[in-house]
């Protein structure tokens, strides 16, 4: 039966995530935006609380499971009565994350033991690896100075030497790279063999071959550290290669890319959380200015500000529902890479658009640091960039709709 409401069984999870967002993220948001690169120590205690909650199951979606942690993509905890329809980890994670990002997206990205690396681990690790790496704080190192969206062009090499792989190369834009315990590094076993030879490798943060080059200074999400690394004869046990070490020309890269089908809706969810914060605050400020939002009147009978607000809200609703759709499909084991990219594209651009328009609607109040609106407008832009830029999402969507390969539509 068609129903697009938030499932009742996640209401408790959402309300807990909301409390964290309201009581811990919001009060610290401005502080760590100003004090970039200082560690938000308030989160350590929060992480401990969330670990405890996870055992009770309440925050399993919003916390560890949110970015592929302890209850990652493989977990199938939530059994629904109607076996033909499942609302599980993907929806739970999405809802939890959205709520937390309503609080602060920068702090969410630097939550201890979170991080997109766990999504990759959960997607391709075997049981033994899950045992060793599961539950740890894992960052993801894909981008290189010469390989951004075209991750197939990765130059970092992994060479087998006895029982170890030796990694050499340069990685940039590693979210939580300095603070994480593990870094999942994408590297090629053989540059001549293209995409199929690209594998992911788990590197311990304290490996002496993993050298921190610098921390970036950014437009937004300044609470979250973004690290650049040099890998110099970085030796790791060969058991740290995730998935199969074989180079399979047909499907190798696809496996790595599948991670994105699960993580893109989550990033879309972050965008939805931030932009909901923008809409809510703007609505309050507009109400103080005497603007009433009447949903029944035709747009031309409303004040321009009210009409613009409803236009923003309608795009927000479309983005939100597209994202729910992608997560729901993942929960029901339906192939969702088209819908995941559609959600990411719509949510990324809509959230940025909303945040910037909200600043403009609120004038100097919106622009000034007395409100969080200007911060949200800076933070939100990253969500239209990482996990695949707007343009990459459109390429993926277009290729699927038009039946084109990446060679046919560049």
């Amino acid at each position, binding site marked *: *039966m*068609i*129903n*697009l*409401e*938030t*499932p*009742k*069984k996640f209401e408790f999870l959402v309300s807990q995530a909301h409390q964290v967002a309201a009581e811990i993220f919001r009060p610290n948001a401005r502080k760590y935006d100003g004090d970039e690169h200082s560690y938000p120590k308030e989160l350590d205690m929060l992480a401990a609380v969330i670990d405890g909650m996870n055992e009770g199951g309440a925050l399993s979606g919003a916390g560890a499971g949110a970015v592929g942690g302890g209850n990652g993509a493989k977990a199938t905890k939530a059994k*629904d009565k*109607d076996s*033909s*329809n499942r*609302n599980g980890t993907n*929806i739970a994670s999405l809802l939890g994350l959205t709520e937390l990002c309503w609080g602060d997206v920068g702090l969410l990205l630097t939550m201890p033991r979170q991080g997109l690396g766990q999504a990759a681990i959960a997607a391709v690790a075997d049981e033994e690896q899950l045992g060793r790496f599961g539950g740890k704080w894992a960052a993801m190192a894909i981008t290189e100075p010469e390989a951004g969206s075209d991750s197939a062009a990765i130059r970092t090499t992994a060479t087998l030497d006895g029982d170890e792989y030796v990694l050499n190369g340069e990685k940039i834009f590693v979210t939580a790279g300095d603070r994480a315990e593990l870094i999942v590094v994408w590297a090629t076993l053989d540059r001549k063999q293209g995409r199929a030879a690209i594998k992911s490798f788990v590197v311990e943060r304290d490996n002496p071959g993993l050298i921190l080059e610098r921390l970036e200074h950014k437009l937004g999400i300044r609470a979250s550290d973004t690290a650049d690394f040099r890998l110099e004869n970085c030796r790791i046990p060969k058991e740290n290669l995730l998935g199969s070490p074989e180079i399979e020309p047909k499907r190798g890269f696809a496996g790595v890319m599948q991670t994105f089908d699960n993580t893109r809706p989550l990033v879309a969810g972050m965008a939805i959380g931030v932009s909901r914060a923008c809409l809510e605050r703007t609505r309050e400020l507009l109400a103080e200015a005497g603007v009433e939002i009447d*949903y*029944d*009147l*035709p*747009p*031309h*009978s409303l004040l321009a500000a009210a009409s613009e607000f*409803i*236009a923003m*809200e*309608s*795009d927000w*609703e*479309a*983005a939100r*529902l*597209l994202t*729910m*759709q992608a997560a*729901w499909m993942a929960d029901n084991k339906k192939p969702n890479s088209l*819908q995941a990219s*559609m959600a990411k*594209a*719509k949510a990324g651009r809509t959230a940025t658009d909303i945040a910037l328009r909200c600043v403009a609607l609120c004038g100097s109040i919106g622009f000034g640091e007395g409100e969080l609106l200007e911060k949200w407008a800076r933070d939100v832009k990253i969500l239209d960039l990482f996990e695949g830029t707007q*343009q990459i999402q*459109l*390429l993926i*969507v*277009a*290729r699927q*709709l*038009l*039946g*084109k390969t990446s060679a*046919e*539509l*560049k």
Partner: protein
Amino acid sequence: MAVGLRALNRLASNGLIDRFGLRDPAQRVLHTASKATVRTATRAGRTFATTQKLSKPARQPRTGRSDLFDLTPDDEQQMLRESVRDFALAKLRPAAQQADEACATPNELLEQANELGLTMVGVPEELGGAVAERSAVTTVLMAEALAQGDMGIAVACLAPAGVSTALSLWGDADQQATYLPEFVGENVPAAALALLEPRPLFNPFELQTRARRTAGGFVLDGIKSLVPRAGDAELFIVAAQLEDSDGLTSALFIVEPGGAGLSIEPEPGMGIRAAATGRLVLEGVKVPGGALLGEGRADVMTECIHLSRLGWCALAVGTGQAVLDYVIPYVNERKAFGEPISSRQSVAFTVANIAIELDGMRLATYRAASRVDQGLPFGREVALARRLCAERGMAIGSDGVQMLGGHGYVKEHPVERWYRDMRAGGVMEGALVV
């Protein structure tokens, strides 16, 4: 500039247009325009008579709250959607261009559409309806599927269903017993909800059509715009401001054609021409006291406006799907500079954005419809869906033409019709109820 125009006008009146052979076309235009405003009195339709006495009105129950997020229609809905879509693509699409030109939908198609049971979905089972529980979702799915064939014909097919749903939702026992049997029978009457009025900045909550209370009932005065199948309709539901002792309230009235003071003017528009839209002119039209629907309650009027807007959303979604499905093979086959134009990002990204916005429109529409069925408030959700369908839907209509370039502008391809139809999404009020 003004001087120039005055000079041009003097030349024109001095016989210049005769020298260039322009007199005839100009006169033809004038002739057509005057023909279009010919006003005719409405014809009386069938006699609606009470066959079965009801002790109280019948209502479809709501389905109640659903626990899980779910985008899969139930089996019955899937079956209905598929059969309606097959019908739309096989019958409506091929007939669309001619119906558009003729400003009429062939009777044969209307009869076939009735066989799909469109007018029975909103009617309670005890009155011969087809669905046990209230299902705006089912009607939305059917409207979407019909519009995939053609929006104008879809409107012509769905207008009577709007009336039967309105009578089911808000009719009292007598009204239901009098009118609904005809809508679940073999020969479904043409019927439509008349809400829109002809003026800029129309606001459905401030109607200029007035209803005055008299000893015998009500007297209605006003003009209703873009009423589907106005010329053939055997029953109207007319929205008017009711002047009562305690002020004005918007209310719905059941109006049978044929009475004094009720006339029709053809009112073709830029799109949905197959719906044979017309103006309904009410000049001192007398209706009995029993014509007032839903006791004139304000919430009935509001719900009616919401459900109507939802119907137009579903039509925009179906038309948007038609655009997407047409554009994809075209841009893949059309070659320029030695390769398919879809190999260019500017074209490919436009197609991607059509798909993204269309899916957003669809999900927002489904959400609102599902809230109707579950008995949840749905005003805000309808508003969001409507804004998306009006603005994003129109953009899809425009992009559809754009992707075909000059070929999109000529009538060899249907995209120009979809462009015209899509504008209805931001204009129309009433006409349908889901």
